[in-house]
Each structure stands twice: as structure tokens, then as C-alpha cells.
């Protein structure tokens, strides 16, 4: 479904990604783990078109997308839940969700999906008319996810959805990720919380200072000593 | 700066040209007045040069934009004096900017003539001494104000008058205070005084106030840009009494802004009337129209034009390009007949010339009377 071949990405003169290649198959949950500043967010931003790779190619559904603008990539069914939630603070919860469906015009479908999102996150329904800037961190994270789902994505890119969340909430978010995946959405998940991420994912990549250093079956990685030492708290 | 052709005595020009500086408001807030003066001056210079110049020497006009700012006026004057070595300067169009240059004129012995700076303190300083190198071609404020007051009392039998002037303009303030003094001396009462600020467009509030005081005459010192709208709005609000102003009203734009109807029953004091059948005047009006795309000249154009002739006449008589000689010739000018009237220069370096009172009739200026300086 998604095939990344040897991309190099720069911020000005600083190279953030070196020759990164990954692939995601339809229906999978793939996770990308790595330390702070490894380049995980950079990779997601490049996929969704917010950054342009200097070299390399990104094939999505068989077509190259690495030259395309972010707003057109969304239309192809790729949704990105950005790091730090980035909800539209000056809009209400409901309006945020409506904007998630910006590219769609099927009114009935949108209404149905909105109801579905409220089902997934009852908290949002309670706060439907509240300005989203005054939501707490966890509420905003739910909103960011709900908003992305409103675009009816084929693939969902999620950047550290568990950051700053209560344990209960983390669990809830991962449950929802599994559920969304079960409903047919492919997921590429970036996480610091390697433990949880590896439990829900089928495959994983490990990124270190802009390079893929390990990849493979999630379960195997979870048991590998290297990963345990570096990312799972050295048990 | 030094050494580039600077000759003895500071007054120098190439052998066959005479350099005159024009330190004018060519950009900024009051650029209209500066450029109006310039248009008039340029026309005069063209004519003089076409007629062989002064003693065979062509006049070269060096422009310097003072951006409508005091500081820039000072700097522009210095540039004209020092860099361009002009023999005399046509000074800024507004009193304030002119005041910022008179001392430099004296210091460097380069005479300065303002075409439209009407404040008395340009030619006579606060201590009552004459600024030797400063001259003007326009009336000073008190004169016109007095004329207007006398006209109101004597011709229009005005008793309860109101004044509506531009608060940010020294010109309007000068006129207003002279008018007030004279009208009171004539036994009239000032029942209302209001003010506005240049560039305003809505005067209804103040006019409503004035209307409630029921004046039988309103004096409106100011410039045509605002006055046109004032007259129009006054009539719209049902103010029908006579309105009067001064040379600042004189522009075809006034008629366009106010409309001929509204202008009926309004009067101005002026240097001249562009409708005056007099030959000099009609020749000037025609020449100006030819040179400026059929736009009729306003008072600033005429004054700019006259300023150049006044200066040229003095240079001719002085027969020298020395600043002091020109200054003396300027001061000694007598009975010089120009577009804005025949004038002599008094001991305070102000032109003594008669004022014309004009009445607007359906948009046209009609000669009403002539008032000689007392």
C-alpha cells in the first residue's frame, strides 16, 4: 500500500532522515519507534506531504506522492494525526470534526461518521460545543484522532498518540487504534511508548538518528535484547 | 562637498544659466500645495527662458522635495544652497516649513521667497526684526482676515457671525483671529466658533452646532480641499446664510466639490480673479491651461508663477547674482504688475497689494469689489 524508497530529508542544511525505506501493507498496524529526535515525526510529515524529500520516492497505492502538496494527499485517503494534537483551538469540538471531513461532501456519510466518533469518544460528545483550546491534553488527543477519522482514511498516520495521557486513556487510545484497524484502516503508528506500540502492531521499524536500524515482526522485536535495553526500560 | 565649482561669494552659476532653487512640498501630506506652486513657477520659467532669459541667461530651476516636513525643509534648503549653489530660493509653500529655512537663507545670504507662506513671522521674527533674506508674494494672514470682516459688516450687514476654521493650519488660525478682531471692532458678535482638521471629510457635526446658533454669516478660513465639502454639507443641512473665505478657496476643485448651487451666496478675498478680463491674467490662464491639460489655475499656481517673475525682476534690476544685491532689489520692488496684482514691498518684506472680493455665482467667480490696503 505504502512504499518508501530511500528518502533523504533535510531541515535547511541539517539532514533529519538518511536513506529511509519502509513499507506498509494494507490492513496492517506498523509501528515506528525510536528515541527523541530520531526523526519519527519527520518521516510522518514527509509521508503526508508537509515536508518534501530531497531524494528518494514515496509510492502510495501504486502512485508516487512525494511531490504532492499535503492537502491533495489527504484526498487520496491518507490522514495524519500530528504530534502535539494540533486541534483548532478557536473552533468548537464539533467544528473540528467537521473540518476533518473537509474533503468530503457526502452529508449523510459525514453525519454517520460523526456519530461514530462520538461513540468512540463519549467525552467529546459531552464537550461538543466547547472551544477545543480549553480541552485538556487527553481530550484534545481524542479530538485529533476523531478529526482524522472523519476523513475516512485508508491509512492513518499517528504521531505519539499516547504522549501526556493518563494510563487509562493510553489504554483506551490503543484499544481504539485496534478497533479502527479492525474496521479496515491501515495504521502507521509512531510511539515513544514502545511497550504498548509493539503489543498492538504486527510489524515495527526502529529509527535511530535518522536511520532505520532494525525492523521486523513486532513480537520478535519486543523480545529482542537491543530493543528491550533501549526502549523498554531495560528489564 | 567642497571644491565642486564653488566660486567666490557663494553665489554662482554657470556662465549662462541662473540657478534658482525650489524647496517645495512635492511629496507627503501637503504635496498638493507644493506641487501647485511648482507648476506655476515652471510655467513662468519656461516663458522667461523662451523670451531670452534674464540678460540672456537662462533660468534653471533646481527642485528639492521637502516631503512636507520641517526637518527635510531645512535639509533641502542646505542642499540647494551648498550643493547646487542657487542664487535664490523659492521657499516652501507652507508657513511652518518656510519658517524652518529663513535663518539658513540669512546665514548664507541666499534670498528666499515663499509664494504662499502667509504667517507674519516668516518675514518678521518674534522680536519684531525683519528677516532680511525672507520675502513673500502672498498676503499675510491679518490682511485678508480684516478685509473679510469689513466686507461682512459693511456689505452684508452681518451682526452675528460664526467662524469655522482649520485648527491645524496656521494660515486658517491667523485669518480667523484677524477676522474676529476686526468684526468685533465693527460691532459684530461671534456667536459660534468651531474648528476642523485638514483631511477631514465630515463636517456635519460642527455645522450642526453652528446652525443651532443661528449666525447670519459664517467665515470659513481654510483650503478648498475641505472648504468644498464644508460648503456642500452646510447647504445640505439647511444653512443658507452667506459664507466667506480667502485665497485658500481659490481652485476649480472647490466648484466641483461644492457644486455651483451650494456656492451661491459665498464670497472670497483673493489676489486676483481668473475671470478677470485683464490681459495679463487671461494670458496666464490660457498658458497655464495649455501646459497643464486644460486645468484652470488656482491661487497657488498663480502665486508660484508670480514668485518667479518677482524674483526675475529683482535679479534683472540687481544686475548681479550676488545674494545681497538680489535681496536689496527684492526689497526695493515697487509697483510690479503681476497676475496676482500690482504690488510694492513694504518694510516688513510683505507685498502691498489690493485684495479682490469675489462672489460665486453658479460656480463662476464674479468680481465684487476691490479693497486697497490701508
Amino acid at each position, binding site marked *: 500500500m505504502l512504499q518508501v524508497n530511500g528518502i533523504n530529508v533535510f531541515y535547511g542544511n541539517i539532514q533529519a532522515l538518511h536513506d529511509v525505506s519502509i513499507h506498509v501493507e494494507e490492513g496492517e498496524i506498523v509501528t515506528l519507534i525510536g528515541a527523541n529526535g530520531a526523526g519519527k515525526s519527520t518521516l510522518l510529515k514527509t509521508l503526508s506531504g508537509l515536508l518534501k524529500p530531497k531524494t528518494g520516492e514515496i509510492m502510495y497505492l501504486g502512485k508516487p506522492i512525494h511531490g504532492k502538496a499535503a492537502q491533495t494527499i489527504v484526498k487520496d485517503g491518507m490522514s495524519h494525526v500530528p504530534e502535539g494534537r494540533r486541534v483548532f483551538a478557536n473552533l468548537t469540538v464539533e467544528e473540528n470534526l467537521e473540518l476533518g471531513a473537509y474533503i468530503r461532501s457526502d452529508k449523510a456519510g459525514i453525519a454517520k461518521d460523526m456519530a461514530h466518533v462520538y461513540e468512540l469518544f463519549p467525552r467529546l460528545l459531552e464537550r461538543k460545543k466547547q472551544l477545543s483550546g480549553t480541552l485538556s491534553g487527553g481530550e484534545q488527543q481524542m479530538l485529533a484522532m476523531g478529526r482524522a477519522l472523519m476523513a475516512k482514511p485508508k491509512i492513518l498516520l499517528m504521531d505519539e498518540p499516547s504522549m501526556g495521557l493518563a494510563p487509562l486513556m493510553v489504554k483506551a487510545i490503543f484499544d481504539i487504534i485496534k478497533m479502527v484497524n479492525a474496521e479496515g484502516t491501515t495504521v502507521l503508528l509512531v510511539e515513544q511508548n514502545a511497550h504498548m506500540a509493539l503489543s498492538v502492531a504486527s510489524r515495527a521499524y526502529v529509527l535511530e538518528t535518522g536511520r532505520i536500524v532494525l525492523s521486523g515482526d513486532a513480537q520478535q522485536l519486543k523480545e529482542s535484547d537491543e530493543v528491550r535495553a533501549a526502549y523498554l526500560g531495560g528489564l | *562637498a*567642497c571644491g565642486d565649482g564653488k566660486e567666490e561669494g557663494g553665489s554662482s552659476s554657470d556662465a549662462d544659466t541662473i540657478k534658482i532653487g525650489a524647496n517645495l512640498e*512635492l*511629496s507627503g*501630506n501637503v504635496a498638493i500645495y507644493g506641487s501647485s506652486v511648482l507648476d506655476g513657477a515652471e510655467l513662468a520659467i519656461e516663458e522667461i527662458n523662451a523670451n531670452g532669459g534674464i540678460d540672456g541667461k537662462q533660468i534653471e530651476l533646481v*527642485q*528639492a*522635495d521637502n*516631503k*512636507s*516636513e*520641517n*526637518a*527635510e525643509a*531645512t*535639509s*533641502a534648503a*542646505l*542642499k540647494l*544652497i*551648498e*550643493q547646487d549653489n542657487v542664487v535664490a530660493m523659492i521657499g516652501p509653500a507652507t*508657513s*511652518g516649513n518656510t*519658517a*524652518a*529655512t*529663513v*535663518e*539658513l537663507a540669512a546665514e548664507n545670504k541666499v534670498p528666499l521667497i515663499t509664494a504662499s507662506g502667509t*504667517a507674519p*513671522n516668516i518675514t518678521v*521674527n*518674534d522680536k519684531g526684526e525683519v528677516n532680511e533674506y525672507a520675502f513673500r508674494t502672498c498676503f499675510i494672514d491679518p490682511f485678508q482676515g480684516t478685509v473679510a470682516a469689513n466686507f461682512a459688516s459693511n456689505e452684508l450687514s452681518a451682526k452675528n457671525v460664526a467662524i469655522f476654521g482649520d*485648527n*491645524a*493650519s*496656521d494660515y486658517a*488660525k*491667523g485669518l480667523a483671529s484677524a477676522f474676529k478682531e476686526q468684526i468685533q471692532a465693527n460691532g459684530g458678535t461671534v456667536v459660534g466658533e468651531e474648528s476642523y482638521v485638514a483631511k477631514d471629510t465630515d463636517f456635519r457635526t460642527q455645522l450642526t452646532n453652528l446652525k443651532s446658533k443661528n449666525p447670519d454669516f459664517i467665515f470659513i478660513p481654510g483650503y478648498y480641499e475641505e472648504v468644498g465639502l464644508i460648503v456642500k454639507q452646510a447647504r445640505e443641512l439647511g444653512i443658507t446664510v452667506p459664507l466667506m473665505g480667502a485665497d485658500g478657496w481659490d481652485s476649480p476643485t472647490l466648484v466641483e466639490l461644492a457644486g455651483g448651487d451650494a456656492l451661491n451666496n459665498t464670497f472670497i478675498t483673493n489676489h486676483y480673479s481668473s475671470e478677470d478680463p485683464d490681459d495679463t491674467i487671461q494670458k496666464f490662464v490660457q498658458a497655464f491651461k495649455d501646459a497643464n491639460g486644460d486645468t484652470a489655475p488656482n491661487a497657488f499656481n498663480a502665486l508660484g508663477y508670480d514668485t518667479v517673475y518677482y524674483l526675475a525682476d529683482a535679479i534683472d534690476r540687481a544686475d548681479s547674482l550676488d545674494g545681497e544685491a538680489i535681496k536689496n532689489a527684492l526689497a526695493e520692488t515697487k509697483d510690479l504688475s503681476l497676475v496676482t496684482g500690482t504690488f510694492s514691498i513694504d518694510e516688513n518684506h510683505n507685498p502691498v497689494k489690493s485684495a479682490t472680493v469675489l462672489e460665486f455665482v453658479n460656480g463662476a467667480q464674479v468680481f465684487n469689489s476691490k479693497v486697497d490696503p490701508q
Partner: protein
Amino acid sequence: MKKSKVFWAYVAIAIIVYAVVQFSMSSGMIGSYYSNMLIIMCVNIILAVSLHLIIGITGQFSIGHAGFMAVGAYISAIVTMKLDLPFIVAIVAAGVVALFAGLLIGIPTLRLRGDYLAIATLGFAEIIRIVIVNIDYVGGAAGMTVSRQTTWTYAFFAMVITIIVIANYTKSRHGRACIAIREDEIAADAMGINTTYYKVVAFAIGAFFAGVAGAIFSHQLFFIQPTSFGFLKSFDILIYVVLGGLGSLSGSVLAAVLLTIVSTYLAEFPETRMIIYSLVLILVMLYRPTGLLGTKEITQFFKFGKKGGKNV
């Protein structure tokens, strides 16, 4: 003490510049046209550097600096022309009264941030101007005659003192407190910085020197009018600070120098002068949005060895 050596080096340079110019002026090598330009340049530098403290260092978006200058210009004119006191007294009085104007404006508007503060300061400057227009004692709109008493010596030393005071202030714990406010007011507050106090201090110092600049300016001019201190003048000062690079003192100085020269030479092209000026402004901002020097000081461009550090 290495730092004080650098300081004395700057003082030496300043004295040499002063002496050379002074000599050229008295010997006639620099005529009055250029000496006028140099004095106006000093005035503009004082204005730029004093506003730099408020905007560039403390981050308070004040766009009515000409108001303080007007206060200084008129107060000094009253002192010399009406009270017949010496010019030096006038300069000090101008600064002190402007400082109080700064407090008057600074204290009530401190609650405001960003654009709201900007419009409020602009408003205060306009109020100052209108007040002057309505005071007949100083000539109102007609203006006031002022005798020329400014010399190169006054202008230059006023400028040098301004720069030294503001540079020294900036490079102390107080200056750091101001920068902290610029960077993040809430965090600065949480670190124990009395943000209100430092904002007021910045306004007061900035206003003081703007007042001094006003005094030097009015006594160079022969004549002052309220129209000289309108918002376009405030914008000019703002432009020096931003064009030079927000936060860079030497940038403000550089921009004031360059723009004074550009503006003087453009007087030759009255029709196109403002078009060229505005185009220059737009192009510089488009291609160097952080200003000519960015946040760096000019000295940092000559220090190749040292990187990152910000201490002189």
C-alpha cells in the same frame, strides 16, 4: 579584565570618529549640508537605539515613539526659548519629562499585549501631538521658533551616551530579565521576574532618550511643529529597528545610518523618492525578514572562531 578592554577600545574609536568629524567640520571640509545630515543621523540613531530597548529587547510592541520625541522637542524648546536656560539644561529636562510621559503611557498599557499595545502606544503618541496642537503657549499648530544650538558635539555625545547606557543595561541581569520577558512572559514571571517593573523601566529609559533626541532635533531645526511628530515619524523609527534586525543594537544603528543616507540622497528624485524608499523597504523585508543583522550584533560577524555565544 578583558571585557573592559573591549569597552575602552570602543570609547577610543568613538573619540577618534568624533575628532575627525569635528576637525573636518571646523576646517570646512564637511559643509553645513553634510553636518546637518550627520547630526540628524545621530538623532535617528538615538531614536532607533532607544526604541530597540523597548521592542527589540523587552519585546513590547510600541509604535508611538515619535510622541516621546515630541515631548522632548517641545520641553527643550520651552526651556531655551521661553525660560532662557542653557541648552544642556533643556536636554536633561527633555529627557526627564519624556521619561515621565513614558511612565504615564507604560503603566496603564502594560496589561496589553502585541497588537493591542501597538495601537495603544500609537494612540498615546497621537494624543500627545493633538495636545501640543491645542496649546497656544507653544504656538499650537503654527509651531514654535527654536534657535539653533545643537552642535556636532552635543549630537555625537548624546548618541554615544545613549548607546553605552542601553548596551550596558542590556548586558546585565536587568537586560536579561527584559529579554526573558520578550521570549516568554509567563515563564519570566514564574522565574521571579517582576515583569511589570521591567516593562516600565524599558519604557522609561526608551522615552528618556527619545526625549533627548527630540531636544537635539528641535535645536537643529529652527522651527518645530506638531506635524513633525506624527505617526509617520513613529513608523520611520520603527523601521530602523526592524530593518536593522530586532534585538540587535548595532543593527538599529546601522539601519538608522543607512536610511538617513538613503533618504537624503533620494531628495534628488522628488517624484520617485517615496516609491524607491518603499520598494527598498519591501524588498529588504522580503529577502531578509529578520532584518539586516538578524538578532546578531555586528561584532559577531567578525568573530569567526567563536560560535553560538552571545556575550561580547
